């Protein structure tokens, strides 16, 4: 019995890893695998993972062996006498992770099938599926992680694949710059995650969630941390979750992330990645119960995000940005629900929202065609005369709100002018000082290539 569930759990975890290796190794050796095979690998790996997960539910429910803990032993184990340092490779199959795992596998299966047609003969077809496999691997690891290090591993894989897929059309500058923007926000918020991981280690020498959630199954766990520890770890994890789920003040990156191909936009920012922060918040629900002000903070963040995204979403002129902000509205509501303690409601909300938004995003490229079809079916134009909120506002206020909304709350501009430019300016000044000092010492100008011009095409022939 135990060996059966252990094997099934291992298959769920290993299927995406095998998929990633199967796509990556031929690329590494410049071997061309056909699109058909890449698609088949993807479908087979996801199907095997999904069937195994369903089997775990069936076997686990019939034998009442859920939640199931899958332990692969210690990944790192150092035992200095004063401070034991240990990373356990442990995964948990409980209501929360199984639900999220099912959602991940089903949606990735759908998107994989859709993308095979959508990206047919696209130059980056293999690159897309490689990053898609990396994303799937990250999602599965993060979903089933029972230790904070395993979660961090999955979390970072999701972040990297997200940023690289935003920059998928990498021969243009705009997607690349937006990809870097997404990555920068992720790295800063992930720093908070790492601080939380180390703090959790400091509190308990190990990073198992059982220290956060107690031994009871989700969602009735009780934190084993002191109030101070729980406050600090919880705050850091809320920052990390806010970055991943684009809660304010990190919301600016989500519409920018729509530069990527539609399938990745759907799976990342409509369905899964954007909910990963909410998943983390659900995982640490016992800490939120223990520290009331963290719950209050989360409610404020959630409501603030909802209000912001609702207003900003109403003035967007392209469908993907509008859908991104509509997603954000729901994510804000989900965070609010978690803050209020409605854990099952939040979980159901995540599932429903993920499916709806995936459908909307996948239909987005053919929106006009759909409209034509609907209008043809009803025999008239679809009315666009719904009563609008702005009709009740004075025109000056309405204009100000419109400007604020079209600039997405000036969030990006605030971050640029308040953080990025002073930061860059400071280090540029330091660079000038350093160069002057070196020039003084050596008597020659620095930075041979700083004056270098862009090489013209074909310079390598010279």
């Amino acid at each position: 019995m135990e060996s059966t569930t252990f094997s099934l759990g291992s298959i769920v975890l290993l299927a995406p890893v095998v998929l990633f290796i199967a796509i990556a190794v031929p690329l590494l050796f410049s071997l061309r695998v056909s699109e058909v095979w890449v698609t088949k690998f993807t479908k087979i790996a996801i199907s095997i993972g999904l069937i195994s997960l369903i089997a775990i539910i069936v076997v686990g429910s019939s034998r009442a062996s859920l939640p199931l803990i899958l332990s692969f032993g210690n990944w790192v184990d150092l035992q200095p006498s004063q401070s034991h340092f240990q990373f356990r490779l442990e995964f948990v199959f409980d209501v929360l992770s199984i639900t999220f795992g099912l959602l991940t596998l089903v949606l990735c299966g759908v998107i994989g099938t859709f993308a095979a047609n959508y990206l047919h003969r696209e130059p980056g077809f293999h690159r897309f599926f490689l990053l898609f496999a990396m994303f799937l691997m990250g999602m599965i690891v993060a979903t089933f992680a029972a230790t904070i290090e395993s979660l961090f591993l999955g979390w970072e894989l999701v972040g990297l694949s997200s940023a690289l897929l935003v920059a998928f059309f990498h021969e243009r500058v705009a997607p690349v710059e937006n990809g870097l923007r997404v990555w920068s926000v992720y790295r800063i918020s992930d720093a908070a995650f790492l601080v939380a991981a180390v703090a959790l280690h400091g509190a308990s020498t190990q990073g198992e969630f059982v220290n956060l959630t107690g031994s009871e199954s989700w969602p009735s766990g009780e934190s084993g941390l002191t109030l101070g520890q729980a406050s600090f770890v919880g705050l850091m994890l809320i920052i990390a979750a806010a970055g991943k789920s684009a809660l304010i003040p990190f919301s600016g990156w989500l519409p920018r992330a729509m530069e990527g191909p539609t399938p990745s936009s759907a799976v990342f920012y409509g369905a899964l990645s954007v909910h990963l922060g909410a998943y983390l918040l659900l995982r640490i629900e016992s800490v939120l119960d223990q520290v009331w002000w963290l719950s209050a903070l989360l409610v404020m963040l959630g409501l603030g995000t909802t209000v912001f995204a609702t207003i900003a979403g109403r003035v967007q002129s392209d469908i993907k940005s509008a859908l991104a902000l509509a997603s954000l509205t729901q994510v804000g509501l989900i965070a609010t629900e978690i803050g209020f303690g409605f854990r099952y409601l939040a979980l159901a909300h995540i599932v429903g929202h993920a499916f709806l938004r995936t459908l909307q995003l996948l239909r987005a490229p053919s929106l006009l065609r759909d409209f034509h079809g609907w209008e043809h079916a009803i025999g008239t134009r679809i009315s666009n005369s719904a009563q609008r909120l702005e009709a009740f506002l004075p025109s000056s206020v309405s204009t100000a709100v419109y400007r604020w909304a079209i600039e997405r709350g000036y969030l990006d501009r605030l971050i640029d002018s308040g953080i990025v430019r002073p930061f860059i300016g400071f280090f540029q000044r330091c660079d000038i000082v350093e160069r002057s000092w070196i020039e003084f010492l050596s008597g020659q100008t620095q930075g041979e290539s700083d004056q270098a011009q862009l090489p013209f095409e074909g310079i390598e022939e010279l």
Partner: protein
Amino acid sequence: MFVPNLPWLETAIIIPLVASVWVRRIDRRDQARLHKLVATSLSLIASCFAWQEFKCRGNSMPRLGWDFLIIDELSSPLFPLASLLFVLFVLATVRTKLIQVSYSRRLFSEAIVLATFASKNHWQLVALLLLGSLPPFLEYRQRSKRVGTYVFHMALFGGLLVSGSIGLSLSDAQSTLRFVPIGLLLAAILIRHGVFPLHCWVTDLVENVTFGTAILFLTPMVSAYAAMRLILPSAPIWELQWFALLSLITAVYAAGMAMVQADTRRYFCYLFLSNSSLVWVGLATMTPIGLTGGLAIWLAAILSLSGIGMTLRAIESRMGRLSLRDYHGLYEHMPLLAVFFLLAGLASAGFPGTIGFVAIDLLFDGVNQIYRYVGAAVVLATALNGISVLKIYFRLFTGKRHVASISLAPRWSERVAIIMLAAMMLILGLAPQSFLLSRFEATNELLNMRTGNIATDKHSNHSDLQLLPATLHSAN
């Protein structure tokens, strides 16, 4: 593993030394390259055997009566790793660059680096450190570059190193003023390590000598090894921790500076400075976890920074020096190099699944025990490094479609070098236990050495002993 009973340690050092004289006699560059490749490969084989001999027997016996050379826990992985780097850089040198490389000088440098990693004696190490700074100086002169910045810093380094060593040999072990010569030694090592504000020679070096020379001079971090041998066993904790704070500042400062660089070489330089400072931060914590983290980051940085340097060098050899103000769109022509650059960069920033991850985690944990709040600077530095790595990746490999009429793809020998480094970064990242255990044993040896010294020093602060493992307390 069977290890033939031969003087491997000595052989590993003698081969490049003899070959440095031998290749001077060869006029044809491609033939000289081949001879150099054979010599460095033989040296690598010998150093691997010396390492294995140490692992099997617990020591590597000097068989030619050269008992001044040694491999122990502190030097065991560094010795073959340094040797491997020199082999990989020969493999990764393209034909167009043959004319610029002085094989004789590079072989001599290899011999010096290997001898340094096999040295334990104080004055021997001092001599080798000073000798090691000579080859870059000669290259400055050969390339007709102004050598003022390098000479200023190396003269300062040499002066402080020698005066500190003299002061240490003259001072009594129980003297209350012993912190002065140790402070001089610390300052010398920090200059050689490139710690703020005396780091400018590193930028100057990277800009003015060949990129390969700069990478091979910097990445092994012989200064950290010198610190382990000369300073850590006897320096007062308070003195170490002040310098650790300076290194922490350097780590963040260099990570910030890396973000604003418009030149690939200068970018590499600041990324190196940020990583090397983290090594020193770990070493100076003198806690078991922090030390293990520092030693682990050291190896991670050698591999990842060599990988980044190798990629930038390969691009430079094809395209010339590139400005980072523009996008170059090279991905389509060199996807392997692009992926490798990203992997190495992420490893240097402590990305999970790579060699840097657990090392950074250990370091942060160790630093956090000493500086509860300031320790977060480690995470800040790695976050900034992670951002700058992706920024440079995008600048070099994306943003436009580059049209080339000839293949820019790496040659087979470059592929071998790249795949070897990538495999090491991933394997040690995915299965880090044995590698971390070896670093943990080195930590214990270092703490043992320190315990021995502190036990003889009645005037030392009792708090020093509190940082040592309980097992060592009980031994006293």
